[in-house]
Structures are given as structure tokens and as C-alpha cells.
């Protein structure tokens, strides 16, 4: 009927206006002049769309790939329709303060991805004194070992009060000389409301830099951030050695990522593993990584075991021509190789 057609037009107009106000990427939800006034009785699914109409997801329209930070884990990227927005505020929640390691680790892994792509600009980590006391101060040696972030690239700002931390974050978010800004807050303070996050988001958008808001032990509250991920630690897989996984050892950092808020994705849960050597995320599917590890176990043989090469999965190429069995490439992301097809066994054979 005509009335519902008019109502749809109004909704479209309002959405356009909201998109304009929020400054999201140009939304092309136009029921443009060329589009025939559609019959309102037809449901949108069965509607035959006019040729010049591009329906995209609400909020984040078709944008260049540059606008998103791809995590490298395909399913998560697909769920987030390309990754995390680069020029935006993103929220990362941990259920309790003891999850601070996982939350910070995941965000630092993202920072590491950003640094590997762009120029080597510094990263500013802002926190209140409270959160640094409760969750520990960032340790530059560990950050370097796990995420390849040099100490010279790190700046910390410790603010005694939340108000000061927010001010610093707002000032920092508008700077283009920083690769990323991390703001860490503990709990669910009143001041960090929709308005405050919107201010941060707007500044991050105009500067084109990501602002990661880490909320330790925070409640999921209304936020202007387009994406909110809920993080927790996942049991790590065992260390890989030449002789197979080393029982009882603690391997690469692993995270359980749940999408708490996204305009595009349905809620979902993913288990990612961070590879500190290659500096990429690998997605872990199923439970084969830790199937047998429900019970605490100890190494049966405490003697030192030769470890696989730490630096990269394949050892340095030996001189000489590779004759047969060219490298298959890295295993499918996230899949733990079963003992039979471990990289050590799939290595190209060499002449000598």
C-alpha cells in the first residue's frame, strides 16, 4: 500500500540522515529517483531490485579494503565484514580483571598487525592508575617478544583519574602521528557513557587512526563504538617440537573472541591463536588443540627436548635446488596440524 511505501521512504531518509550525522562511510541505501516506487506489498526479500541500487549493510557501507584491519582469521573477518574498522573506536571487554592479559594481548596483536602494515609510528597506551595497579603495567620486554613492538615505539600515559585519562585519549585520538591509541579503563564508570565514547569515536574517525578501548571487568553498556569484542583467554596449544607437541608445555597465546556488538555480524565465537614468530593470527577450529588436555598433565619426560625452529615454521632454505615436493604452504589458518602432517614432515626434501 502507498502508506507503507511512504513509511519505507521515510525510514530510508532517516537512515541516510543518521549516517550523515554519525559520519559513517557514505551510505548508498538510496531508493533513488530512478528506482521505481516499489509495490509495498512485496516483501523486501522477494523484491526485484533496480539495477542501479546497491544494497549494503547498514552503517558500514561498501568501503575500500583499507578501511578495515583484517585480523587474518577468515571467519572472524567475514563475520566483521572485512575486519575491524581502522578509523574508529573499538571496544574490547574482559569479563574480569584477571582477563587483562588476554584483552591486552589481543589488542596488542592487532597493534602489531597495524605496525607491520603502516609506517613505524609510536603507540600510546593510556590507562588510569587504578587499572595499571590492578592489572599490571605493560612490560616492554614481553611486548617486544610477543608482538614485535619496540620499546621506542611505546608511550605510556598514566592518569590519576578517569577524567584525565579521557582527556588524554581525546587529545591523542585526533593525532595522526600515532599509529594507534589504547585506552584502558577498569569497571563501568558513569563518565564513560554514550557521549564520551561518541566523542572518542568522532576524533578517531577524523584522524583516521584506530582507538582501542580496553574495558577490564566492564559491563556491556551503550557505546558509540561500531564494534565490541568480548575476549577471554583460551587454553594454549602445546609447544611444537621436532618430536611432536611437547606434552604439558604452554605454547602460543590463544584467545576466545566473541562478538558483543557489531552492526554487521551476528554474535559468534571464535578461537584465535597468535603466532608471535610470524606475527599473524591463526584460527583454531574444533577442539583438537586441547582435546586431551582437560586433565592437568605433566611432561612424562622432563629432559630437554629439541624445539622446532622458533623463528619461522620452515627452517632456512638450504643451498641447492629443491627437486621435488614443493612446499605446500602454511597449513590452513587455525587448523592445528595433526601429528601426521606436522610441518616437520612436510618439509621439502633437498638434495644435500
Amino acid at each position, binding site marked *: 500500500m502507498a502508506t507503507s511505501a511512504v513509511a519505507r521512504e521515510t525510514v530510508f531518509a532517516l537512515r541516510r540522515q543518521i549516517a550523515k550525522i554519525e559520519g559513517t562511510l557514505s551510505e548508498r541505501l538510496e531508493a533513488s529517483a530512478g528506482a521505481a516506487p516499489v509495490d509495498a506489498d512485496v516483501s523486501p526479500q522477494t523484491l526485484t531490485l533496480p539495477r542501479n541500487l546497491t544494497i549494503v549493510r547498514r552503517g558500514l557501507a561498501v568501503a575500500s579494503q583499507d578501511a578495515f584491519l583484517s585480523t587474518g582469521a577468515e571467519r572472524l573477518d567475514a563475520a566483521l565484514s572485512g575486519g575491524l574498522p581502522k578509523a574508529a573506536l573499538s571496544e574490547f571487554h574482559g569479563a574480569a580483571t*584477571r582477563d*587483562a*592479559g*588476554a584483552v*591486552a*594481548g*589481543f589488542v*596488542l*596483536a592487532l597493534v602489531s598487525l597495524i605496525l607491520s602494515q603502516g609506517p*613505524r*609510528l*609510536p603507540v600510546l597506551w593510556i590507562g588510569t592508575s587504578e587499572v*595499571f*595497579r590492578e*592489572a*599490571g*603495567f*605493560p*612490560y*616492554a*620486554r*614481553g*611486548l617486544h*617478544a*610477543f*608482538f614485535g613492538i*619496540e*620499546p*621506542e615505539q*611505546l*608511550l*605510556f*600515559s*598514566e592518569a590519576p583519574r578517569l577524567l*584525565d585519562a579521557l*582527556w*588524554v585519549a581525546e*587529545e*591523542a585520538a585526533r*593525532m*595522526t*602521528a600515532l599509529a594507534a591509541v589504547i585506552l584502558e579503563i577498569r569497571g563501568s564508570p558513569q563518565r564513560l557513557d554514550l557521549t564520551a565514547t561518541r566523542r572518542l569515536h568522532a576524533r578517531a574517525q577524523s584522524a583516521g587512526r584506530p582507538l582501542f578501548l580496553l574495558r577490564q571487568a566492564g559491563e556491556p553498556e551503550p557505546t558509540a563504538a561500531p564494534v565490541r569484542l568480548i575476549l*577471554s*583467554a583460551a*587454553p*594454549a596449544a602445546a609447544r611444537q617440537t621436532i618430536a611432536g607437541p611437547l606434552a*604439558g*608445555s*604452554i605454547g602460543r*597465546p590463544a*584467545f*576466545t573472541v566473541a562478538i558483543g556488538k557489531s552492526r554487521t555480524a551476528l554474535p559468534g565465537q571464535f578461537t584465535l591463536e*597468535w603466532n608471535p614468530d610470524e606475527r599473524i593470527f591463526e584460527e583454531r577450529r574444533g577442539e583438537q588443540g586441547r582435546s586431551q*588436555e582437560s586433565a*592437568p598433565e605433566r611432561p612424562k619426560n622432563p629432559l630437554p627436548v629439541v*624445539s622446532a*625452529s*622458533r*623463528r619461522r615454521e620452515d*627452517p632456512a632454505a638450504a643451498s641447492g635446488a629443491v627437486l621435488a615436493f614443493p612446499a605446500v604452504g602454511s597449513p590452513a589458518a587455525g587448523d592445528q596440524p595433526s601429528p601426521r602432517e606436522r610441518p616437520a614432515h612436510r618439509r621439502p626434501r633437498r638434495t644435500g
Partner: protein
Amino acid sequence: MISHRQGNAQRIAALDERAEALNLKRGMGIADACAMHPSIDIVEADPEADRRLLEGLADWCDRYTPLVALDGTDGLYLDVTGCTHLFGGERSMLDDILARFFHQGFDVRAGLAATPGAAWAAARFAGDRIVPDGEEEALLAPMPLAALRIDPEVRASLESVGLRTAGAVMAAPRAPLARRFGASLLLRLDQALGRLDEAVSPRLPVAPLSVERHLAEPILLTEDIERLTGMLATTLKSDLERRGEGARRLALLLFRVDGGVSRIAVGTSRPLREPRLIQKLFHERLAALERDIDAGYGFDLVRLSVLTAAAFDMQQADLAGETSDDGADIALFADRIRARLGEGAVLKPVAVESHLPERAVATIPFTEAPQRSSPPKQPDKAKDAPTTVFQPERPIRLFRSPEPIEVPATEMPEGPPLNFRWRRALYRVARAEGPERIAPEWWREAAGREDAPTRDYFRIEDADGRRYWLYRQGLYGASQVPPRWFMHGIFA
């Protein structure tokens, strides 16, 4: 009237004119004074407050000259060499000082002379006199011995031999004087007469560069102060340019009409001379101090001083007229944060050669990073020899002070715990790696002190998959004290 305790009795320390009119004297006992005039008002002396007041006045006198020194408990020296022309000559400067102090409610006496000693005497015994150069002797001659700034004992013994004026001492032969009354008498005499130099040590170091503006109409608003700061900084810029320097520390002095002085200092992480940026820094500082600065009736003199300057490297701008220097942006950003939140608000980590985890990284306040002459070292994959040595794993977050945890049981005496209690929550250990033994740095220990116990670090994963870094301090059975366990860090 003000009393103070001297010896065993309350005595009069200071008194006003009306009390003087009642024939009371300094040093008289309070009991006697009360007996003579029961209605007098007595206040206990507070030397500390007097001192603060005098320092406040010295700050205020900074408007006349940067060289202000305290003189005892009741005087100030102002070295006005080269400053008098700014106020229209010596006479008008002295009048200005006296008038301003009078309006603030102080009764001051001033003297101006070529030597500190003569000025001291002129202020105390001649009253608002300007002594021309070379006439110190004529000034001092008729004065009592007290004008020579000598000890009371020396004065008393001089008087006992009949030398009652400074002129008489000057006329006496020097050698016997020195033999009988000590060298200090002649020293004071020579200093007063200008035969010996006397240094007046100023309270504050003199700023290398200062610009100031006297205001006919006092200003009250923060915006006005900021705008004025910008104007002063513009003036300062040309001076800095001529010297090829930039400011590292700046101070803004606000002189209140009624004598209060507010001093606002900011530091910069790289030499700065751009007025706009200086104004921005003071904007942050003023915003942070909004509650602490009392404008009162307004400020009538604003001075901007460069306390520390450093060589300023010129940078060539690109064709668009902008220097695309991210470092400058960050330096300015850090300065603004520090101006508002304090020196420690922006920190940067510095790797330290140490195997102790808490010492291996030091966080220092952000300053300009040392300029690299060579590009940062890139890990060269081709040349990188395969490392066989395990890099020890380090956590991504470290607690500033390790937190004690309770460990009820370990599988083996030297092994990892089975479970532990941290912050009143129980954690079950699923897997553990370790131990990594970290010994204390014995070469840093003070001699004779008991050795700090060694630590055995374990990497722990709890049942939920969180990874921690624990350590056991001390060994089982090594001493009577059982080893203690601590939580030191969190892994990703």
C-alpha cells in the same frame, strides 16, 4: 605588639607606633609591659610566617630586578644595576617601590647606594636616601656603630673605648682595630665603603631571557593572560632566534596588584620558540591550575622568562610550508599532557641491561628521543643466524610490586604449585612451565647485607586458560623461613 620567648622570659619582639608612644621598648619583658599597661594586645611571634611573608615580598620585588636577596629577617637587597632607567631613574624607582609598598600596607624604609653596606645603613639610619657614588664615607661618618652591620659584642667593646660613631672608627688606625676587634669589623667597613666587593646572592637564578609587560589596567581573565602570553612569546621569539636557541623551560610570572606573585612553569621536550605553541602549553597549565591561582584584584605585570634554553635545530619546510615532522607533533602533545597532569604523565620505556625482570625496563618521563643518526636496525633475515638459545618468555604485563599468593601445596618441593590463591580467589593450575631461576644481582647489593633469595619463576596456565607468571622466593629447606610465592606478571 608581638612577643617572643627569649631565654626564660616572654619579651617584646616588635611593637607598633602606638605601643611605642606608651614608652614600651623592644626587649622589655611582657610581664613588665602588662603591669604598665594592662590593656595592650599581645600576639605570639611566628618567625616562620614572617619568613614566608618576606619571601613573598622578595618574589614581588622581582618586578624591579631579577637580583633579589633576603637580608636577615627583616630586609631585602635589590640589585638594581642597569634596571633604574626602566622606571625613570633612581629617584622615581625608589618612590615607586615605596608607594607600592605603602599601598600594600607595609611601612618600609629604603636606601639606594653603590654598595650593599651603604644602602643598608642608608635604609635603616638615613631614611629613603639615595647616596651618590663616592659619598658613602660622608653618609656613614655621623652614623652610630650599628650602621656598620657588626656584632653587638664588637659594638659594645668599641663603645667602651669611646668609639661611638662610624666616623670615629674610620678615623682610627686600622692595624690596632683589626688586632683588637677582629677582622670582621674592617671587612664590614671596607664593604660599606666599596673598597671590597660584596656579593649579594640572589634567591632565584636569573633567567637568560625575559620579556614583560606592565599593564595600566589589571587583568583578571584567564583568556587575557593567555593572549598576553602569546604576545610576550612573540617578542621572545626574535630574541631566541637571534641566539639560535629554543626554550626548554619557561616560567610565567603574574604579579598581582596587591603584591602576590604566581609563578607558572612549563617544560618542553624539545626546544621551542613558536609563540602559538608556547601559548598552547600555558593554556593547559592554566587550565590545570585554575583553582590554585587567585587573581584577586587582577595582575598588573606579566613576565615570561626562559629559564633554560637549548640549541634549536632549524628544519627545512617542504614546499607547502609545513614540516611534516611527526616527532614534533608527539613532543608537543606530550608537553601539553605534562603541563596539565604533571611530569610523570607521559612515560616511555627504556630497556636496561639487566636480567632482573623488574629492572630490565625502566620507564622514564618522555623527553625528546635521542636523534638517531643511522636508521633503526632492521632484523636482517638473511644474515640472522638461527638462534639456538631460548629467549626466556616474558609476560606482557608486570605488577609494579609482586603480589603475594598463597600456595598450599606443590607436587615436588621445587616444583610448580598445584593451585594457588591470589586476591582471595582460588586458581587451579592446569599446566606449568619452569622453573626459570633468576638470581639477584649480587654486584648491586650493599656490602654486608644479607643476600636476597633467588627466585624460581614458573609459567602457569590455569583451568580457564589464563597464563600467569609466578615465582617462589627462596628454597625449601635452605633456611628456617619457608619460601614465599608471588604473582609477578600476566601473559597474553
